[in-house]
């Protein structure tokens, strides 16, 4: 199933996420109170445009190489002489621009997804072994305490799982692995999972905008989810982490080959950027004979059936394996695992905080969810132009088997205050109010419950009515939907795991829009994306926009899946896009300046290098950590706790 399949490859290298950060503060969307300084790098106590105001949004593979391949019979090689795929490169597009990493909204920054990302396996000379397009699924299982940094985005880690669609294969490569992969996969797609961590958001660091990527690619089997493993879900007892610092991960029992596969790429805390794990003792995977045994409890042979030791501490284990551990199962293990939870047990010389007597056989580090329950939504991210609809599948299983006839309860989070802000005091604090998210609730319509069918799936229509511009300076509204299946405990779902929906305001059609209609929309993009503004077209200036109408018509007309699509953020409703295109179609190449030319202040902005010189802790000693995701997540979790 998916990349957790006997046939798979592992790759390792770096990734680049050149995120633009001016849009990290929702208040920067307010054209009326926008200040040129919001396009500058953070400085001293002023967050300004945060840590990468000139980001392009590009998402790239950097130096990712295949480290090993596995075959259907369970064997593997890491020797290029045995299989030429080993050592080849996993990379992006060869004849188009880089993919873009996109958040759905400044008020929901926990569902970033690559758009327009191509994935190719190539030796760099001949034709690609395969290539295709990454379906833009967002990351999952984001956590902020993995390390090695003390906190913030540098300590964050997450996994991107999706499918590579629209494949083309080159039959000319003499690789057993390529043949097995092509023969195994279905639906003209492959399954891919990228674990990303060790991200550097310090502009003075040579690794700025880069992080570590550990990847896995395997077959995609028709009917399975594209964005998660419908298998055995390990969940920590606390929010985000277990007592000894592990987070959510997935496993899968491949009954055909009697193999257990675990994806540990995102599971262990690490001590360096390359992913060397924090030593939490010798680890053993097994099955809890006593399904009630909880995390941090000692096991014995009466309560735990050991399967295999997990060599996660071996040198370079993560890069060599892609984070996947596979082990054969005996008939007894296979049978017991069918209706008993799996658990990872660790033995360490010192076990601080042990809640029971260590019997010398280890403690439960993390275990499968209560009753083996798993429920996920797919797609988890929706963009609806009001009035409009979308549909979402709720997929439930127990011990990896579809959970039929289960009731899924669906609720809105309702109003959430204060999301997506940033600096709260000091010079250059944005003055716009932070709008509430999740209201009006009447604009987001869906049934309160649904029931899974024989395949354990319930498909629900969600409807977006015109929210009526509740946020004022930013389009539409962002809603979160909570989903629960009966019997599940709180940690069964990861804390950021919601159906998130951006419902865009209804737009009155207008056959003859003027600059008054389109100017505010384009000005907002100009404010938020200084790179576009300074290097391509000044979106605040109708003269500049008109002079670039050909290229703008091209990019606004592309499909959102195209890497050149504009806006990069993919947050423009069809109605507003239509206004812009109509204005562009009507305007001559040169229009009289109907609005003031670009402000002199913007022209005189310090150059990136000048900013670089001013940046960094050494510059003034009052460096603040402006970490986007961390700031956002902390805010959200505070609101969530406060509200319940």
């Amino acid at each position, binding site marked *: 199933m998916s990349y957790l399949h006997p046939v798979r490859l592992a790759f390792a290298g770096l990734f680049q996420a050149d995120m633009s950060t001016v849009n990290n503060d929702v208040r920067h969307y307010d054209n009326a109170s926008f200040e040129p300084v919001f396009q500058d790098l953070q400085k001293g106590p002023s967050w300004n445009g945060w840590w990468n105001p000139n980001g*392009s949004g590009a998402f790239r593979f950097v130096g990712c190489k295949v480290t090993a391949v596995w075959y259907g019979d369970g064997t593997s090689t890491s020797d290029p002489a045995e299989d030429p795929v080993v050592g080849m490169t996993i990379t992006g597009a060869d*004849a*188009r*621009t880089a993919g873009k990493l996109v958040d759905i909204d400044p008020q929901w920054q926990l569902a970033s997804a690559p758009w327009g990302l191509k994935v190719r396996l190539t030796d760099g000379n001949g034709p690609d072994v395969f290539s295709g397009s990454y379906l833009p699924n967002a990351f999952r299982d984001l956590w902020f305490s993995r390390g090695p940094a003390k906190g913030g985005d540098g300590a964050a880690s997450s996994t991107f799982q999706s499918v590579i669609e629209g494949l083309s294969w080159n039959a000319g490569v003499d690789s057993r692995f390529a043949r097995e992969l092509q023969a195994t996969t279905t639906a003209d797609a492959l399954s891919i999972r990228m674990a990303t961590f060790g991200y550097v958001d310090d502009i003075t660091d040579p*690794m700025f905008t880069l992080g570590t990527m550990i990847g896995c690619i395997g077959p995609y089997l028709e009917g399975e989810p594209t964005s998660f493993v419908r298998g055995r879900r390990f969940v920590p007892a606390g929010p985000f982490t277990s007592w000894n610092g592990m987070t959510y991960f997935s496993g899968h029992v491949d009954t055909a080959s009697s193999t257990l596969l675990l994806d540990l790429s995102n599971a262990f805390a690490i001590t360096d950027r390359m992913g060397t794990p924090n030593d939490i003792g010798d680890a053993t995977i097994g099955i809890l004979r006593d399904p009630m045994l909880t995390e941090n409890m000692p096991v014995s042979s009466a309560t735990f059936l050991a399967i295999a030791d997990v060599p996660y501490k071996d040198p370079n284990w993560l890069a060599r394996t892609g984070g996947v551990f596979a082990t054969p199962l005996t008939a007894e293990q296979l049978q017991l695992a069918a209706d008993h939870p799996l658990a990872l047990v660790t033995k360490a010389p010192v076990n601080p905080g042990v809640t029971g007597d260590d019997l010398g056989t280890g403690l439960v580090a993390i275990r499968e969810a209560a009753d083996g329950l798993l429920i996920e939504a797919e797609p988890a991210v929706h963009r609806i132009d009001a009035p409009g609809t979308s549909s979402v599948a709720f997929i439930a299983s127990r011990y990896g088997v579809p959970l039929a006839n289960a009731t899924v309860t669906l609720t809105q989070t309702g109003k959430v205050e204060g999301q997506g802000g940033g600096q709260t005091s000091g010079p250059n604090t944005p003055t716009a109010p932070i709008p509430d998210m999740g209201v009006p609730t009447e604009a987001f319509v869906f049934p309160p419950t649904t029931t899974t069918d024989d395949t354990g799936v319930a498909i629900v229509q969600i409807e977006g009515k015109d929210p009526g511009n509740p946020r004022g300076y930013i389009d539409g509204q962002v809603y979160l939907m909570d989903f629960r299946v009966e019997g599940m405990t709180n940690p069964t779902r990861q804390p950021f795991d919601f159906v998130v929906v951006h419902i865009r305001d209804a737009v009155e059609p207008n056959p003859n829009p003027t600059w008054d209609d389109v100017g505010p929309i384009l000005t907002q993009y100009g404010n938020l994306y200084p790179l576009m503004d300074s*290097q391509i077209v000044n979106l605040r200036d109708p003269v500049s926009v008109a002079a670039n109408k050909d290229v703008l018509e091209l990019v606004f007309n592309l499909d959102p899946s195209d890497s050149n699509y504009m806006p990069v953020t993919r947050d423009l409703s069809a109605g507003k896009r239509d206004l812009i295109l109509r204005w562009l179609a009507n305007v001559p190449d040169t229009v009289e300046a109907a609005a003031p030319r670009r402000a002199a202040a913007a022209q005189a902005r310090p*150059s990136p*290098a000048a900013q670089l010189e001013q940046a960094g802790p050494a510059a003034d000693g009052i460096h603040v950590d402006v970490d986007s995701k961390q700031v956002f997540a902390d805010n959200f979790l505070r609101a969530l706790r406060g509200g319940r």
Partner: protein
Amino acid sequence: MLSVQPKILESVRSAASAEDLYEHLQAAIELEHATIPPYLTSLFSIKPGMNTAAHSVIGSVVVQEMLHLTIACNILNAIGGSPVLDKPGFIPVYPGPLPMGVRSGLVVGLEKLSRTLVYEVFMSIEEPEQPLDIPVKQLEARLAALAPEPSPGFATIGDFYAAIAAKITELGNGIFTGDPSRQVVDPTWFPPDQLFAVHDVATATQAIQVIVEQGEGTPTSPEEEGEPAHYYRFAQLVYARMLVRDPTTATGWAYAGAGLGIDPAGVWNLLPNAKAADYPVGSRARYVADQFNGSYTNLLRALHTTFNGDPASLKSAMGLMSELHILGHTMAALPIDGTPYYASPTFEYTPA
């Protein structure tokens, strides 16, 4: 003056079939392309918001070189050939001579914008066979002293294109066997009187005329379609004055208009003729240089696809040009530790 080896002209003149012209049109494509990285490097060296007039002059020339490349590809396609843009040697080694054995002594490199660069390199590349002697009001005497000597024994690039046109005329309409769907004629980017389908002798010679006149002007006017030809456009930067009509001079023109100089304070001090290997592995400059080279290689691939039967790939190429623009400017603003220099893009073919 941009000169080509006489034996190339002899080869063109002795061509007996369309096939015999393929290598020469391929060389023309490579030559037109070869000017673009030097021009782009000088563009990237301009600091944001500075030297705006110079930026627009050089930018406008780059766009026309892209047009010339497109035209050369259309001609090659029209007579049944297949342009190759995605091979390792397509990008010349900088610094070095331009393709086609262009006159020895002209070394073209990748450097920051300067008056010297524009005068000694860019104007040499674009120099017409017989430049009009247009006075620089304040510098008239100096200009005369600096005028380069003609190079005996060499043919000019103008001669080369004239020979191609003559040979195509001689071979006749029968050689236009190419698939018309391979013609790239998107009117979004170039007007139809500059970029049009090439399908017979008349359209081919007309297309060649566009290349020559945009580059060199005509023997009687520095202007083509209301714009100064490249040579005179660049000269404005050297003489720091717009080219304007002036009835008091012999040619009717003078560099006597509005100021149009280069402010060195508005130019990043780029490392000249940089290679990616000049930047230490693990440095930010190296990461961005590698990305730039990957992106430039992708652009050549997208163009190769565009000119080999899929004109719609031009959209992907346009996107890559924006990406390169961003990466180029990002690089130029990166100081190289321990040196007075800033990082320059390196334009190396690096498929991945």
